[in-house]
């Protein structure tokens, strides 16, 4: 069910401000692609264009093309809501629905998709929580509020919620930046498992993390404040971190930049 993403000539704007300029890239299915780069370089903005979450911000818009296999996500008749049902997303800060139980959090997306049967829901909730390596920790307290879990557990709950609807692609926007090292490790292990089924794109500020979890790495950079972010280089992770083609990439990963 994982699909290939092909982006060509994509620009993302906030009102009149061009935040991301002319990005083209191919993201392979069943692989992990990491986006790295300095703050403000547009990597999160670009990530959010891949499930049309960018445009929920007032004034934000996108031009260019994003193909999910053979479907253009920005086509005329494409409903952004439908796009988000096949391209799941996990955010920087764990954001389980605070008023819902653990069970209902995982079932939320399924209910939106019209899954009603109790036994069907039970099954998918269990599979998803197992898929997110959370089942053993929460199986005895499914009716308890999701907000009562620890930060790392909440983030895995959010991942369970995202994979419960069986998306084609899973986008992760700095999913570990609010977590401690042990929870981070748990999420990274999970990413390694999930890539056998999903196309995963992860934004991270942590270069070791990018090196650990990803197959391919994209480096974004920005020429200066107020200038648009650009994709500098996308290649095999091992190549980016040992022998990058671009000077800017090498400067960034070795800590010499600016």
């Amino acid at each position, binding site marked *: 069910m994982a699909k290939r993403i092909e982006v060509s000539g994509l620009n993302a704007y906030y009102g009149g401000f061009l935040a991301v300029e002319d990005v083209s890239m191919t993201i392979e299915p069943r692989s992990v692609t990491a986006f790295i780069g300095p703050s403000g370089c547009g990597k999160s903005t670009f990530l959010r264009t891949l*499930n049309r*979450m960018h445009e*929920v911000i*007032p004034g934000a818009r996108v031009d260019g093309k994003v193909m999910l296999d053979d479907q253009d996500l920005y086509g005329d008749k494409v409903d952004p*809501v*439908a*796009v*988000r*049902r*096949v391209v*799941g*997303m996990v*955010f*920087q*800060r764990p*954001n*389980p*629905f*605070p*008023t*819902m139980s653990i069970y209902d959090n995982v079932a*939320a*997306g399924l209910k*939106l*998709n019209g899954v009603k049967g109790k036994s069907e829901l039970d099954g998918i909730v269990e599979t998803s929580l197992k898929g997110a390596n959370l089942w053993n920790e929460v199986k005895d307290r499914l009716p308890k*509020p999701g*907000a*009562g879990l620890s930060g790392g557990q909440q983030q895995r709950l*959010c991942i369970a*919620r*995202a994979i419960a*609807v069986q998306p084609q692609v899973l986008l992760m926007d700095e999913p570990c930046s609010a977590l401690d090292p042990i929870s981070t490790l748990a999420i990274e292990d999970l990413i390694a498992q999930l890539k056998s089924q999903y196309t995963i794109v992860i934004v991270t500020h942590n270069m070791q993390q990018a090196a650990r979890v990803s197959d391919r790495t994209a480096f974004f950079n920005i020429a200066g404040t107020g200038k648009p972010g650009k994709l500098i280089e996308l290649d095999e992770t091992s190549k980016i971190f040992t022998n990058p083609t671009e000077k800017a990439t090498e400067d960034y990963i070795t800590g010499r930049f600016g």
Partner: protein
Amino acid sequence: MTSIDDVQTAAVGVSRRRRAISTGRRGDKIFRGAALGSGVFVLVIMGAIAAFLVWKAIPALQANQGSFLTDTEWRANSDPPRFGIAQLAFGTVMSAFLALLMATPVAIGIALFISFYAPRKLADGLGFIVDLLAAVPSIIYGLWGLHFLVMNSDGVVSFLNTYLGWIPLFAGENVGGQSLFIGSVVLAIMILPIISSISREVFLQVPTPHIEAAQALGATRWETIRLSVLPYGRSGVISAMMLGLGRALGETVAIALVLSTVAGINWHILEPGGNTFAANIVRTFGESGEIGRSALIASGLVLFVITMIVNMAARAIVSRRKEFTE
């Protein structure tokens, strides 16, 4: 995005009070004294009002030949005085409750429309107009209710009576005119702006991550509202409803103008009649004697107690599912 979230969760809805730690500095002491003084002052005022009402009510309660709680007639000025609050309590609670029932869905609809559906410019204008409704003096609502609503509501009233007459509340032979129903409609319009503007504020403060959680799952706008906005705003909306209910319970002039005095408890709200504590006080206080006034104050005491019970019930509802909101 995240820092806004922090500020908002700290500021909204949840009562996470911290004990102030006194450092012994003079500024802290002064501030502590001022805060304590304000808190105590409120309690003193509440206590003084209650004591005053009880004190003034005692002579009438002692002279009363009827049953204060169950009699439906108010003859505090006859000799011997006979009066009971049953009709007043019924009219007050029924009209306020009906008003809340009518106003809440509309108010929430307006609040949701302004905060999530309307284009920015329209939203600002509409919000302003709704707030203006709150600034209209209640006597104006009363006059409008009496001279417009009572005159022009026959169609609606007979429709309700004909087609929904199987509901006991809408039954009755002789519907129309200055009924409890019309009084409730006027009250509903009066409490609409309070409920709507507080709900709007609460909805606007829903943290972005909660909204994006729903959107990223592929929720439509309505589904986002149902998943993220309404649960988050729930306690705020209930508080707004209670403020509205408080105003409806205590509303005086408008309801005194609209209702016509017919004695007795009448469950047929479409028929003329009905009375409330506040309306009864404002209509009869001027021509009452010593005992009559004392009796009215006793009824005011009951209104005071009812309002307090309503507020406490609201607090209980708000805190019941606290586990899920913090």
